[in-house]
């Protein structure tokens, strides 16, 4: 299908060496279940799922172990059948090296699925389908792990012009989408068709970089029967696989600052996500595994279908890491983040485990001062001014950094790649972004505290008023009563005020008398002789104690 499609260009970008050949020589292999699966509950953008299991529970493959917390969240499932041995804090595949809540499962080796029933999305409301996908744990598998059900919403207009499917896979070393398209093109296209129906999208454009001829051939064959669905070959240039960049290349639409692509009738999904949607809807299988590229400093680079929760150490053991390995990177060399240890598990965001060594990734030369040469601005695919962002991020003037649209930065690393002064620019942006987020959170907390404090003041004031009102009502009632009593007696010699006062005193005396009567011991009559004897004994003891205490008491005046 050689349809002529006009391609557009995005600004900037770089062309690093592909390094993709090594891991595409062999087909996808299935990584065996490890001795222990450590499944983090928080694997997507949004709320942390609530655990549904506890230690000792038996789980089946695909059983939900974490329930989505609100709509902006995604469920988590057991990747294989076995026994939950713990729900505890474990090291996360996150640069911070901090632990988070994980479900640890000891596989029983049977790999027994739950009952899988395909979801009849055609006879379900869009909301039901989206809820189903949320509970199936489908998230964007391109690396951002944004819950897919939130993106599968055509919005107010109810339809979309273009559905862009991202098979560009622009980052060096990573080939998981490439092999997926080569081997599972049919299923992926079925997934795309489901998404297109949900979004009521007019046309579908599958963008693939021109360095993946096998994947292009396979996908073209698979889309041949579909209407208005085309594979578009895009020039290889990093980061052509960025959502905004790919949309720009395929449709010419440049999504401006502060807008979403859906505002322009376009939505973008990764091919891996399309395949996951196919599995979830057509096969009834929740997301429990993904294809992960293992590449870099290994003898046998390859793609594996890996169960979530498999420790990275088990995975790289299959590939024979070379002895000088000193680090693991999740993701590629441009955007990847270094792992705190090799025991961290593979999660939904893990598209690649890049094994590094000092020779493969030599330590960066020392950072030199910025000379404002502007190379970074030429390379920036988001049309930002990285040198300005750097200037203000470095000086911690975050307001200015935001004015220069820091948050439009996609952290692709092009600027740092071309920087002649070897400044780790992205590190500065990440630092500035997390500081700004932290400040926003603090601000929100302060605003909430202000509301609560003001309510407390209001409440205290209200309580005071209510108390005063109650007191006033009581006094008024007392006066009225007293006045009525006096009126019946009728003593004209005194003024009404004096009457009221007198009446009040009288009423108070009455009350005191009544109280005294109440307080007086009432069960003193009709006592048995034993009881009387007991009372006498007690009284005697009291008198004795009084006598004893006398010398210690101050003298009476």
């Amino acid at each position, binding site marked *: 299908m050689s349809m002529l499609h006009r391609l557009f260009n995005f600004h900037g970008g770089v062309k690093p060496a592909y390094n993709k050949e090594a891991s595409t020589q062999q087909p996808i292999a299935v990584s065996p279940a490890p001795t222990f699966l450590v499944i983090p509950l928080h694997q997507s953008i949004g709320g942390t799922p609530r655990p549904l299991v506890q230690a000792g529970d038996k789980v089946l493959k695909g059983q939900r172990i974490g329930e989505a917390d609100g709509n902006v969240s995604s469920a988590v499932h057991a990747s294989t059948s076995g026994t939950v041995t713990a729900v505890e804090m474990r090291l996360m595949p996150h640069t911070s090296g901090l632990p988070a809540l994980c479900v640890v499962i000891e596989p029983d080796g049977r790999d027994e699925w739950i009952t899988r029933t395909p979801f009849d999305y055609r006879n379900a409301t869009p909301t039901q389908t989206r809820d189903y996908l949320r509970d199936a744990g489908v998230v964007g598998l391109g690396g951002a792990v944004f819950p897919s059900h939130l993106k599968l919403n055509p919005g107010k207009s109810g339809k979309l012009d273009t559905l862009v499917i991202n098979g560009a896979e622009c980052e060096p070393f990573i080939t998981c989408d490439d092999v997926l398209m080569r081997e599972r093109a049919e299923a992926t296209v079925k997934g795309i068709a489901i998404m297109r129906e949900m979004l009521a999208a007019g046309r579908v454009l599958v963008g693939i970089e021109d360095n993946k001829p096998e994947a292009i051939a396979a996908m073209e064959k698979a889309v041949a029967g579909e209407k208005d669905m085309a594979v578009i070959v895009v020039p290889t240039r990093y980061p052509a696989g960025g959502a905004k960049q790919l949309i720009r290349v395929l449709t010419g639409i440049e999504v401006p600052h502060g807008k979403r692509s859906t505002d322009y009738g376009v939505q973008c999904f990764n091919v891996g996500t399309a395949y996951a949607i196919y599995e979830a809807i057509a096969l009834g299988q929740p997301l429990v595994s993904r294809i992960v590229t293992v590449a870099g400093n290994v003898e046998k680079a390859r793609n594996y279908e890996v169960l979530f929760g498999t420790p990275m150490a088990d995975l790289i053991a299959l590939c024979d890491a070379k002895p000088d390995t000193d680090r693991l990177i999740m993701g590629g060399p441009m955007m990847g983040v270094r792992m705190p240890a090799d025991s961290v598990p593979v999660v939904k965001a893990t598209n690649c485990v890049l094994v590094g060594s000092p020779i493969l990734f030599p330590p960066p030369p*020392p950072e030199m001062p910025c000379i404002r040469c502007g190379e970074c601005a030429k390379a920036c695919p988001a049309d930002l001014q990285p040198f300005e962002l750097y200037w203000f991020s470095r000086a911690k003037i975050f307001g200015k950094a935001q004015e220069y649209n820091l948050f439009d930065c996609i952290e692709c690393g092009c600027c740092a790649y071309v920087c002649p002064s070897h400044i780790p620019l992205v590190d500065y942006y*990440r*630092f500035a972004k997390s500081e700004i987020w932290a400040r926003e*959170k603090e601000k929100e*907390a302060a605003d909430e*505290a*202000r509301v609560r*404090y003001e*309510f*407390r003041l209001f409440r205290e004031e209200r309580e005071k008023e209510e108390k005063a009102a109650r007191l006033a009502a009581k006094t008024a009632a007392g006066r009225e009563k007293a006045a009525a009593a006096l009126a019946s007696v009728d003593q004209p010699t005194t003024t009404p005020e004096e009457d009221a006062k007198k009446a009040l005193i009288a009423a108070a005396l009455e009350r005191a008398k009544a109280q005294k009567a109440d307080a007086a011991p009432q069960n003193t009559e009709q006592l048995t002789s034993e009881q009387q004897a007991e009372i006498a004994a007690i009284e005697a003891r009291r008198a004795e104690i009084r006598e004893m205490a006398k010398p210690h008491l101050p003298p009476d005046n």
Partner: protein
Amino acid sequence: MISAILVMALGAIVLGAALGYAAVKFRVEGDPLVEKIDAILPQTQCGQCGFPGCKPYAEAIAKGEAEINQCPPGGEEGIRKLADLLGREVKELSAEHGIEKPKAVAFIDEQICIGCTLCIQACPVDAIIGAAKQMHTIVADQCTGCELCLPPCPVNCISMEPLPESVETWKWKYPVFAIKPATKEVA
């Protein structure tokens, strides 16, 4: 001489009338600046600044009766923001009002708590739940870490627990490169 006096007097009358009119016409009611200052303050209502809450402190700053460096929970960042808003010099946090501490939340040791409700009355943001002779507990999400509940507690069962860093609250560090120690030449 007479003309000089006349000229100056005329000038004074005209200008005085103009100013008098303007003073009536452009009278300012209230002080919108207080709101802006209050928005910067951390709303812990802790009183460490010497005022009975964040709003009174904001009012004092707006009137020029208080310095901008009296708020320990706001810290250096807060002082910087206030200085920015008011065009004043950034100052060090005044030591007599306290020191900047990492954010912490109060924690009630439920074994010791006797249910006296004194801390509930002290909490400015109603972040303590409990009733008389019932065990009390802190709603950690709403606790501002003001420490106002510490002094009234008769059994000292409240302690401040620093918030541990989690994957959600973790921040990228400022890019600093460790200087490697020089390797000693072995003779």
